[in-house]
């Protein structure tokens, strides 16, 4: 079933990280407003494949807004113009017939282009590996209800834990800062009793790794919060800064836990 929207796409094409890229213009024809943005690209790619041309490469997987694999910088916005959704949940009814849509990859030196619209976000994994966990081995025997956690704390930790690691915050930031992403994990674990023993070492390790990966500094502009598809709040960054400064100031005395 085809639709009646005709669009012009300006798409970033780049063979790999070693070559330079350029915009290529495509027509997307007979597009239905019920299609998701990625389904619109599927249609374009089917056409390219039939012509023997190479389809446009982009990252995607679950197509229900939770895996964090899809990206795309659409008309100057990560995940497109609509708030609170990922590209896979953005529908073509958000656009109008005849529109020209510009599609770029995430732009940040810490996210090198893999091919066309796909980038390498392994820096995010390395930041998590540096300390985004509670150090417990499998097989703990403490009952799940042994540590009561006030509902408000559990809910707040959950809000931070909903980060999908897509990288929109970095793409939205003029400094390509990863502070929102890092602070979401630091906040989740910093709020919960399980995360207390490593609270101050965790924040230092994760921030150190973030700096090593070449992400920029935070200047509190808030573009990350505005563009985050999961609406992670800027207050996470405030919490992380607080923990980070506490750690730096009181680290050597070894009493930072008592100060809180």
């Amino acid at each position, binding site marked *: *079933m*085809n639709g009646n929207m005709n669009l012009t796409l300006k798409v970033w094409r780049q063979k*790999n990280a070693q070559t330079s890229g350029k915009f290529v213009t495509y027509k997307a024809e007979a597009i*239905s*407003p019920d*299609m*998701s943005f*990625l*389904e619109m690209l*599927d249609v374009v790619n*089917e056409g390219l*494949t039939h012509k*023997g*041309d*190479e*389809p446009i*490469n982009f990252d*995607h*997987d*679950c*197509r*229900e807004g939770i*895996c*964090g*694999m899809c990206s795309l910088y659409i008309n100057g916005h990560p995940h497109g113009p609509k708030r609170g959704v990922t590209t896979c949940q953005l*529908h073509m*009814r958000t656009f109008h017939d005849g529109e020209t849509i510009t599609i770029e990859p995430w732009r940040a030196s810490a996210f090198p282009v*893999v*091919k066309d619209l*796909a980038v*390498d*976000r*392994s820096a995010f*994994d390395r930041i*998590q*590996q*540096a*300390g*985004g*966990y*509670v150090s*417990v*081995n*499998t*097989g*703990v025997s*403490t009952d*799940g*209800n042994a*540590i*009561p956690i006030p*509902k408000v704390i*559990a809910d707040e*930790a*959950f809000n931070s*834990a909903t980060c999908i690691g897509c990288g929109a915050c970095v793409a939205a930031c003029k400094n390509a800062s990863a502070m929102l992403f890092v602070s979401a994990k630091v906040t*989740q*674990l910093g709020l*919960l009793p399980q*995360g207390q023993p490593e609270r101050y070492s965790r924040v230092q390790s994760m921030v150190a790794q973030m700096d090593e990966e070449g992400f920029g500094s935070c200047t509190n502009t808030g573009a990350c919060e505005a563009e985050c598809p999961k609406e992670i709040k800027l207050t996470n960054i405030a919490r992380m800064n607080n923990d980070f400064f506490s750690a730096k100031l009181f680290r050597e005395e070894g009493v930072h836990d008592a100060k809180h």
Partner: protein
Amino acid sequence: MSLDAKIPEGPLAQKWSKHKFDLKLVNPANKRKYDIIIVGTGLAGASAAASLAELGYNVKAFCFQDSPRRAHSIAAQGGINAAKNYQNDGDSVFRLFYDTIKGGDYRAREGNVYRLAEVSVNIIDQCVAQGVPFAREYGGLLDNRSFGGSQVSRTFYARGQTGQQLLLGAYSALNRQIHAGKVQMYTRTEMLDVVTIDGHAKGIVTRNMITGAIETHAGHAVLLCTGGYSNVFYLSTNAIGSNVTAAWRAHKRGAFFGNPCYTQIHPTCIPVTGDHQSKLTLMSESLRNDGRVWAPKTVEVAEQLRKGTIKADQVKEDDRDYFLERKYPAFGNLVPRDVASRNAKEMVEEGKGVGGSGFAVFLDFADAIKRLGEDTVRAKYGNLFDMYIQITDENPYKQPMRIYPAVHYTMGGLWVDYNLSTNVPGLYALGECNFSDHGANRLGASALMQGLSDGYFVIPYTLGDYLAKIGPKKVDTSHPAFEATKKDVITYISKLLALKGNKTVNEYHRELGHIMWEYCGMARTAEGLTKAKGLIKALKADFWVNAIVTGENEEVNASLERAGRIADFIELGELMVDDALMRNESCGGHFRVESQTADGEALRDDENFAFVAAWEFKGENQPEVLHKEELVFEAVHLSQRNYA
């Protein structure tokens, strides 16, 4: 070849404890001499990788996504069951075991299912310790809900994103071991074959999805944690990348495939809008607690609704057929998933489907809103309603939702014994990619439980026994079997890349999906299945002549990745049809029209079909050979389901 499930002797409740004691242990100092390969990093894979690395084994983990955190476990919404009995409502390990066996329509092993129920309580403790933010009550204790028609509240959840939170917990444990240097993580790497030496799995062949490099990896054991195969239907609730390739290639190297025809179809999904559609979105079945399912009584009214000349709220009460309430007065809208799905399909086939395509029925909240108020309904289901609005641009507070069933989960998978070992020694299958615990139908909130049970609490014990027996002698890729298997993979890729026909791989996939959905979907007949077999054979032949695969191997090439996966789905589809045809009974999610009760319910044939079907690959284009593992029931009495 005899199939030995290796269920331990002794009373049901003591089997696992006894078995854990009987299993051989690997000396702590020797653990670092063993290399373990784990494919897939969802709940089963990530939890296994972390747990085995913690024990001291060297782990290499692989995923095709750009990060282990993307695995499709992340999309599970509802929750995870555990027999904690925190609610004091009569739950117990035995009750969870019993519900799971019964829910699986008596086609799962008692021993496995009991163990699953037993370790379910440890999973919750483990996840809480990791900092998984489960829902809590005001007193600070863990909250539970009743799920999927269960009569006790044993489901733990984290809003509608339980899978995400559990996966991120397992991912964090995995990250800790990567940081410690005990796990080497390979992302954007796809497993394309298993290497066997003297009948034992000793490694894998992979393709680096960035450079195209075909590489070999050796290990003392290979664990497949690669998920289910719902995408054989083209449209399903699975992620686009979810595929059967790792499991299927293992099958072609000797691992038996268990009960391939057992698939679960979920009744409350958002209907298809057109051919462009790439996947289906599930909405939690909790919606059926308050929503009423109906279709127009007459084809004429349905016709008007399809054309849009009238709206759903204009259909008079007398012209509506609340068909679940009418046919199943006791359970009403809460009948099991397969019953609700099949009835919706029947309505559509009678010409009473609604929506532009006609492939939908209504799920109406008007009465609930009248009874409870819009605010209460919003508090309960707000996020689901928002999702519906987002996708359909319709407001379910004003008009009923349109729903239709979609393929959601596959109970079938690689055959494994009690130790999660396939019949190929050294090759293990965990999580959805094995067949083991859900029988012919899976209960809600049990998939997450099984993935984590296998990875955190079963494999760390059972794998040690095998490793202790084979010893720590180094395995490396210099053995000629590695080069030979690698050569096979390269030849296969060249064959795919040579396809320069006139039909895209996606078109083949869609066609396969149509065949599977039509003839091997919610209701299956001998006639339809026989027809499907012919259609799939023809599709396969056509694929290998007329498909288009663009680009080359030495680059990022989604077209090539896709082509390999679809080729495997086509072969799997044929086996599913064989299995469905062989199983001339109805059970769980497998409904054979020829085998039903007078009320139109699934009718089992315990005398002839109380067995696991394990299929053996015998070579390209050769019929597969069926092996039967008889199911023995000692603790439960087999009964006929009845929801009327």
